[in-house]
């Protein structure tokens, strides 16, 4: 293998790295010059190379194993004539996927918490006895260093694929190569979007015709995503991280500002990644799901979930909420409430083995469930008070309220531990208007630093969060404006971007 190929191979290819740009260029040229029947292979090999750049060989083994298992179980479900056999096959397929996910991501968390419970029980029981007679064993801690990057995303794809075949809404894919590519397609491998087989598989089979507009649009998506990640998200991280990583040096006011900044950071980080994924895929004439639709303009938490991580929220709606709600349909309102809590609990757990994610998920479940329970009372109240729910003022209030609810939940998502989150929430209530509040307004560091020094970035972030999708209308303007915009976009990314080793937030899920 020539040295440069080895070099390319061994680099971990983050989307915001030169090695990724080089990699995409090579893959694109190989794809362009290949025959149609061979193109899936080019993308599959590229996806394997991309994944192996993480230098975790077990990930390739797991991906191929999950792909093979899901492929064959999908075929068998389709071929089975008995409903019972179909059901068993589906359960075994889901179990294989879920167990892989649990063992990779959650076993350390589970054993750690079981050990805490064993130790607590042991100390309690032994304290009751004068002469201890009981012996307690703790579980061997599981290595937490096992990398599981990308696993949650393709396992969710595999599960949805199997369920869709079981429900007979999809036909199984007979071409193993196409199915393997559906599971591993590199632009969406590490952070999604979580694609449905029915959306993605047919696109791999279409003959490729070079489309200038599509290629240009792909490049614009990529450049825009890169700008959002490197200029906005990573600059906001410079404000958020010092506060969240040193909670005892900060007060309530700083926590509020840092939390708002984090709400914007995570949006630009994740949506930036998605734009880059969409842009890359567009080069190959493949359209991925748009994962975000200006989520902070949502007028309710339910509306937020229709706009935030759309491929994921559609997944949990279709494959968790709806089946759970159906099974609890005789419980009426309470059935829907339980279904919501279960759905968002799983959503929290999916994000990782951490109590913070679980509380974050439960909070969203609580928001949604209470909105559902109190909806009739709201309606009655508003009618009686004659409140115009369609007025701009009312909608603005709703957006503000929802943004604050969502931002509050982000505290648990971002805090380094559940105790840190509790400290932050307490500080916001107890140490907001103390003497430090005035001090922080008078002196720039660290309180005012957040407001003044990076005001431009914050204002830009808020504007972009509002008008994000309008950016793509630039393609309708004349060449002069278009080229000026492109130059400004790339130049500002190069001038204002953060080039330290900053990771994508959603990579770890």
């Amino acid at each position, binding site marked *: 293998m020539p040295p440069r190929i080895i070099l390319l191979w061994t680099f971990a290819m983050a989307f915001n790295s030169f090695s990724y740009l080089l990699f995409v260029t090579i893959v694109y040229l190989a794809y*362009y010059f290949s025959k149609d029947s061979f193109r899936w292979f080019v993308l599959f090999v590229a996806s394997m190379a991309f994944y192996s750049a993480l230098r975790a060989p077990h990930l390739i083994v797991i991906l191929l194993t999950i792909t093979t298992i899901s492929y064959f179980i999908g075929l068998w479900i389709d071929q089975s004539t008995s409903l019972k056999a179909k059901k068993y096959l589906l359960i075994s397929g889901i179990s294989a996927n879920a167990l892989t996910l649990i063992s990779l991501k959650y076993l350390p968390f589970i054993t750690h918490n079981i050990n805490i419970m064993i130790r607590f029980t042991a100390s309690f029981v032994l304290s009751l006895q004068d002469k201890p007679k009981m012996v307690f064993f703790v579980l061997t801690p599981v290595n937490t260093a096992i990398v599981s990057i990308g696993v949650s995303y393709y396992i969710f794809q595999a599960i949805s694929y199997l369920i869709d075949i079981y429900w007979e809404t999809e036909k199984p894919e007979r071409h193993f190569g196409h199915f393997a590519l559906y599971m591993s397609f590199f632009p969406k491998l590490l952070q999604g979007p979580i694609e449905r087989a029915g959306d993605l598989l047919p696109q791999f089979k279409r003959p490729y015709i*070079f489309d*200038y507009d599509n*290629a*240009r649009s792909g490049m614009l998506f990529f450049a825009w995503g890169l700008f959002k990640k490197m200029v906005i998200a990573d600059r906001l991280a410079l404000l958020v991280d010092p506060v969240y990583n040193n909670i005892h040096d900060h007060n309530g006011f700083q926590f509020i500002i840092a939390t708002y900044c984090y709400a914007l950071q995570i949006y630009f980080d994740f949506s930036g990644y998605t734009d880059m994924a969409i842009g890359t895929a567009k080069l190959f004439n493949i359209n991925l799901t748009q994962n975000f639709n200006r989520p902070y303009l949502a007028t309710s938490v339910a509306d937020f979930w229709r706009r935030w991580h759309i491929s994921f929220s559609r997944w949990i709606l279709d494959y968790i909420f709806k089946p759970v709600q159906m099974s609890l349909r005789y419980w009426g309102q309470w059935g829907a409430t339980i279904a919501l809590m279960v759905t968002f609990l799983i959503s929290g757990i999916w994000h990782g083995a951490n109590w913070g994610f679980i509380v974050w998920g439960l909070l969203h479940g609580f928001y949604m469930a209470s909105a559902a329970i109190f909806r009739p009372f709201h309606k009655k109240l508003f009618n009686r008070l004659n409140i115009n729910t369609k007025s701009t003022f009312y909608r603005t209030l709703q957006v503000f309220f929802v943004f604050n609810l969502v931002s509050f939940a982000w505290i648990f998502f971002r805090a380094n531990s559940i105790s840190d989150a509790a400290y932050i929430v307490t500080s916001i209530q107890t140490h907001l208007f103390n003497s430090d509040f005035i001090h922080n307004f008078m002196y720039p560091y660290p309180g005012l630093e957040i407001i003044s*020094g990076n005001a431009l970035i914050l204002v830009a972030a808020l504007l972009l969060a509002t008008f994000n999708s309008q950016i793509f209308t630039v393609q309708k303007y004349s060449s002069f404006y278009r*080229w000026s915009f*492109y*130059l400004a976009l*790339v*130049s500002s990314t*190069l*001038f*204002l*971007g*953060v*080039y330290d080793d900053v990771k994508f937030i959603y990579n770890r899920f």
Partner: protein
Amino acid sequence: MIKLLFKSLLFFLLLLITLNLLSLIVMKITPLTSFFNIHKNAEWVYSAIDKSHATISNDTIIVGDSVAHQLIPPSSYNLIMTGAATLAGQYIVIHNVIKNSKTIKKVVFIYYPGSFKFGYDNKYTYNNFIKPFYCRENISLFDQSTQHKLHRHKYYYLYMLPMSKVLPIFSLIDCENSESKNFITSEDYDDVINYIRLIHQLCEERKIEFIVISPPVSMTHKEQFDFVKFKKIISANNLSGVFYNYFQSLEFKDDKYYKDSWHFKDEYELEMSAYFQAKFKHFLSHSN
């Protein structure tokens, strides 16, 4: 496809021009804002360069490396940079300060032995030497050997462009190429000899006293650095006179004072600073 390739090429050309024009603007407004942070990782170097372009109303200036930084408090006549600024960088700063400040009578040069071994592509050298010093106005001050070594680097022409001084992406070069040895200074101290000689000549012409002294050296560094060879080279090049104080004052301290065999631990910094200033009081004294 041809249309895409042609337009991409055209775009990159326009981008290159835009980036360089914008870089020139950013360099002009940098004193007004730290937003672009173009001095990142080399604040001491830029501070010394700024001071060297101003007039210093003192008869003594102090130059040196990061260890010297721990020993001498900040002041208008403290132009201490880092070892990674290399002797070429030290020479340029001394040259400029002597040219701009006519009151200088004494140059005190405090250098840790290992700093003499800094090449032009070591870790930190891009941010501390190439970026601040490798520009058109300084080219004539580099000796032939330095110019030759810099031109051997495949990207040297890029380092002359204004954008290389401003774009943060160039700052990564230090981290990524820390192991590369494209144009490193050789072990025979050619550049050290050349630049010490140039500084010495410059001082002699202006009747300025040039004093080279060493900070206390750790026992580990004593083992690592070949003092015998270094002394021999200095002597062979007739620079023993310049290095007289250096070798005379050389002393070794227990490793417990050091965090990395070069720099002092934070808790010993004040103690060592007071000790060093007392020891070299006669050299460091000055009048305003």
